[in-house]
Every structure is written in C-alpha cells, then in structure tokens.
C-alpha cells in the first residue's frame, strides 16, 4: 500500500452521485447503477437512465469480468504523477454487464491483446480511494 503523502497521481472527485461506487471499490466490489424499470446497466453515475429515462435506480455488484476492447500507451507525460511510470498503458474494458470502463491493468506497462478476458482487482491508493484495475482472467 502506498502511503497517502506520496500518491501524486490524480484522485477521483467523489460526490453524491458516485460515492457508492467508490465505497464499493473499498469493499473490493465493482458497483454499477441499474435501472429499476428497464434493467439497463450504466457505469456513468447519471441520475437518469439513458435507455428509458427513469430516475428509479439501484446499485448492483458487477461480476468484475470483461473483455479488453482497446488500449493506448501514453508516451507523453500529461500528469507529473505518472512520470515514473512512463510509458504506461490505459485500457478500455467492456464489462460483461455491458458498459465500457477506462482503467489500467495491474501491470500498466504490458499492453493486453484486444479480446483478452480480464477480471477486476482492487488497488488501495489512499485511505479514501481504492482503484479498480484488471488482470488477465
């Protein structure tokens, strides 16, 4: 575990919309919003279902399983906090529940092949923040 004072990477902005998501990662759960009315599942924490417009929603615990949709390897340092990790890979994972999600693989220097099956793992970075990352399933 990395102590708070040396985690120089950007942290998520936690608000009333996404608090349950970030409490979930602390409990090592990947939580997604599901629509009460049409069952559409979303990663974005909008108050409205983009599929049917309903505001009725509940959190589900996702399987954490998915497939690598694509990746890019950053050679340009946009964030000083990543300077020791250059170059690093960001992946897009298509979760089995439907939504896509941006993340890193646990080893962010290896790029996975598109189509690789992956599963979620949880990495504590500060007392308040645990990130969801992925490793080959």
């Amino acid at each position, binding site marked *: 575990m990395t102590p708070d004072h040396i985690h120089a*990477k*950007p*942290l*998520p*902005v936690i608000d009333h919309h996404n608090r349950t998501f970030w409490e979930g990662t602390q409990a090592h759960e990947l939580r997604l919003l599901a629509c009460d009315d049409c069952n559409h599942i979303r990663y*974005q924490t909008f108050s409205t279902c*983009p599929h049917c417009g309903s505001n009725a929603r509940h959190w589900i615990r996702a399987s954490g399983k998915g497939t690598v*949709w*694509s*990746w*890019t*390897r*950053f*050679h*340009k340092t*946009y*964030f000083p906090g*990543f300077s020791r*990790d250059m*170059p*690093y890979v*960001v992946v*897009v994972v298509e979760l089995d529940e439907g*939504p*896509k999600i*941006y*993340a*890193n693989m646990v080893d*962010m220097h290896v790029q996975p092949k*598109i*189509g690789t099956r992956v599963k979620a793992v949880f990495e504590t*970075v500060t007392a308040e*923040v645990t*990130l969801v990352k992925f490793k080959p399933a």
Partner: protein
Amino acid sequence: MSMTGLAGRPAIVGVGTTPYGRLPEYDQYDLGAWALKEALADSGLSLGDLDGLIVSRIGDYQRFGEMLGINPRFTAQLPGQGRMAGIAVQQAAMAIATGMASVVAIVYGNNGRSSHDRYGGEGDQYGSGGAGQWFPYGMTSPGALHAMLFERHSALYGTTSAQLAEISVTFRQHATLNPQAVMRDPISIDTHQNSRFICEPLHLFDYCLINDGGVALIMTGQDRAKDCRKKPVYIRGVEQATALSDSSMPPDDFWRKPMQSISKRIYKKADCSRDELDALMIYDNFTPTVLFSLEGYGFCPIGESGPWVSEGHLRLGGRFPSNTSGGHLSESYMQGWALNVEAVRQIRGECGDRQVVNAELIQYMAAAPICTSIIYGASPR
C-alpha cells in the same frame, strides 16, 4: 421554402484568415476581429452590413460585439470545439433561411499555441463532463481516444500505421503548395514511422498542429450574394447527426451510424451525387478520423479505408483530392474552420499551385459525437 429547407441557397461571399503560427500579441478576440476584417474586405461588405453574428472559441460574444461596436439582430456563441465549425455554418444558413438575419458573420479565434493549450492533463475538458473521471488511470486527451479507436480498427480490419502515414504525407505534400501552411517541408512514410509516439499507436505526425489564428466567413442569401465582390460559393446542403449517447467511451462503430444518416440525406438536399464531388475537406484532428470519415460517409467500403487511402485517392490529381491546404495536420489546427475556407477558395479558383482543376462541388465532413457535413457548390443547383 424550397425542398432543401433553405429558401433559395445561401452563399459564402467572404472569407478571411489571419496568418497561422505563433502570434503572442493577439488574443482570441483580436484574431477573430482580424479574420473578420479580412472576410469583409473579401466580400466588399462592411461591418454595418452585418445583422448576424456567430462566434466560436472567442470567449464572450458580448465582449466581441462591444469591441466591434455592432448590434446584430441575431447572435449565437458556440464552444471552442472542432465539431462546432460545421454547426456554425449550418446555423448561419438557418438564420438566413428563416429571415432571422440577412448577412451573417461566423467568426473563430484561437490562441491555443500562445496560451499553451495541451488538450490533455488536468485542464482536459474533452468528452462528456470532462475527462476528470479517468485521470486516476492517467487517461486524458482526445488523442488517446483516437489512438484506442485506431487500435480497435487495426484489430478488426488489419489497418496499419503506414496507412495512416499515407494521410500525413499526402496532406504535407499539399501544404508544400500552400504559402499559409505552418509545416511545409515534405515528409515521407519513414518520417512518419520513425517519429516518436504520443499515444501509441499514434505517432507525432498523426496529430494536428496547435497554433494561433483566426478564421471568418460571411454568408448571405442567394439574391444578395450575386451583388457581392466575388463569385458566390453556394451552400448546396447541410446536415448533422449525433452520437451523444454513451459518448464518454470510444464508439463501437467509429461514428458510422451518424455519418451514414447524413449521407442518406445530404446528396438529395444538395442535388448532386458523391461521384460528382471534385474535392473533400475531411476533419483531421488525428489521421484515424480521416479513415473513419471515408468509411462512414461512404467513400470506401467499411474496413477498407486503410488500403484505399494508400491507393492515393486523397492526393492532388487523385480521385478525391482532400485537405488541399494541408489540413489540420500540416496547415494548422483551425478546428474545421480553415477547411471550410479552403473549400470556398478552391471553388473560386484562388488556390494557386494547389488548385483543383474546375473545382465546382466540395464536401466538408467531420466525424465526432456530433457529425456535420456541408456541400459547397459553384452554382446554386
């Protein structure tokens, strides 16, 4: 109203551009005002003739109007995103068609180079609600999203980086013929392939150029256009379609659905066919966008844009000469605005060494969560 929805066909009667590059003495307002003066001089009209104003990337329409001392009866402001260039032209055409205005200036000012815009990192606002949600993973920048899209396209269809290089090399070749282009030294496929990665698999030469500059166009109705100083260039058709749903994530179809929707309508509106086009102006923030546009707007079969561009169709002298100014990759990243000006100048025959012979019909097209397209013509129909 005519069948096109545009009462008569509005026309561009003036275009104006500043030099592009590093202009630290000028802010967005100065650059916009400079381009506007050039456009008015080009049209033979004066500030007093304007009764419509649309600004983009210029911070505040009110300040801009105050600076120019004008009171247009129609005004709008669009955010400084490239997808807005086509929308500005479309809104001006709508204002004229509905009688909301008779002479509309659409004005763009960009001091991105001098103000050190990076399009990535802490200030990144790209996408739906900004990219801040993904910063903990180091995800940022439109370039990264396009890199992911290209990698996906490669995996599905076998498209290669060398095929992207063909686009860079072609547009650079065009820029060598354009005195206004910022980058005019020819490059080769090897130059592209050996350049450093930014967001791999994209290389430096897959990225557009951040510069300072201003662009303005003056539009008026068909009747008034005939009396202006230069040959009018008519707006034959405008169309827009979007993919806002789920737009934080790279789209599975490379924005194909909205582009296909546009293509179904725009040629009917413009009363021409794709085969009659003399040149294309393709929004090229990154080279992969050109491939996605060619497939989505129907210039080549799905998945075959890579080999298709390598056949040389986009080159001057090719079947669809494209971005004859050098585009965003080599002239300057004026976010679609200068490509619309290039379409007008080509149809007027003002393009010197890079002139497309008998250019009469040119299509502008952009691929993004908002797709726009415009067909410009030498004749109203």
